[in-house]
């Protein structure tokens, strides 16, 4: 059977936390990329985490994103933003007010990352929290530049990613 799912790199945040996780020199030999995230940020309050995803260190306003999300406690909501300098992912991931030692569980799929077309992104994410309010979300995003993706930067919008947060990048090959 062909190997179609290859771990490229894994990051585990160390003590002291980290504000940014960055994958550089991404091999151009796969068809798609899959990023699995388990994140928690250090901001006060609960559900306050999110991360900005930036490709190739490009902060020009060539990104857009949409999401639909619910917490099980209030009505689901949806929104989106155009012309941003990033795609927001893992929105509402755990922060200091969530149950201790809980993290989000997110999968971000990036098809055709070496193509000369716009790059699309889809994400499904749940957070963990041992109370009535616990978010889950589906997100989509687009980066309209046509460069192949060679680096992915994730920046915490909620102070820093805490210790034991992880990010793993996989390459997906055609079967």
């Amino acid at each position, binding site marked *: 059977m062909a190997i179609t799912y290859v771990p490229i790199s894994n990051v585990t*945040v160390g003590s*002291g936390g*980290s504000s*940014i996780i960055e994958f550089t020199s991404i091999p151009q030999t796969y068809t798609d990329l899959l990023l699995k995230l388990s994140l928690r940020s250090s901001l006060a309050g609960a559900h306050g985490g999110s991360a900005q995803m930036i490709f190739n260190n490009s902060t020009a306003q060539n990104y857009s994103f949409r999401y639909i999300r619910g917490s099980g406690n209030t009505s689901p909501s949806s929104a989106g933003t155009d012309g941003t300098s990033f795609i927001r992912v893992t929105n509402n991931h755990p922060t200091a007010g969530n149950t201790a030692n809980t993290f989000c569980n997110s999968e971000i799929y990036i098809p055709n990352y070496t193509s000369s077309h716009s790059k699309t992104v889809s994400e499904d994410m749940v957070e963990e929290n041992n109370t009535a309010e616990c978010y889950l979300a589906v997100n989509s995003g687009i980066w309209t530049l046509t460069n192949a993706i060679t680096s992915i930067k994730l920046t915490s919008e909620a102070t820093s990613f805490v210790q034991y947060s992880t990010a793993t990048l996989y390459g997906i090959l055609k079967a």
Partner: protein
Amino acid sequence: MSETLTKVVVNCETGEQQVLPLTAEEIAQREADAAAFAAEQAAREAEAAAAAEAKANGIAKLLALGLTQEEADALIK
């Protein structure tokens, strides 16, 4: 003593991982982004609270008109 903000950079070709201090530009960007995100969150929360309050007010008025709780809930859905 102020905390040193860091980033983890992994080179996918070599597997080398480095923990580096943020540049002044990255720190400034991060602060601006955090402020914008906090404002956005606050606005969203205020909007959700206003919607919940409007819903509760609506139900109260329906009950005052003589509807049962079940009937009011069915109309609000």
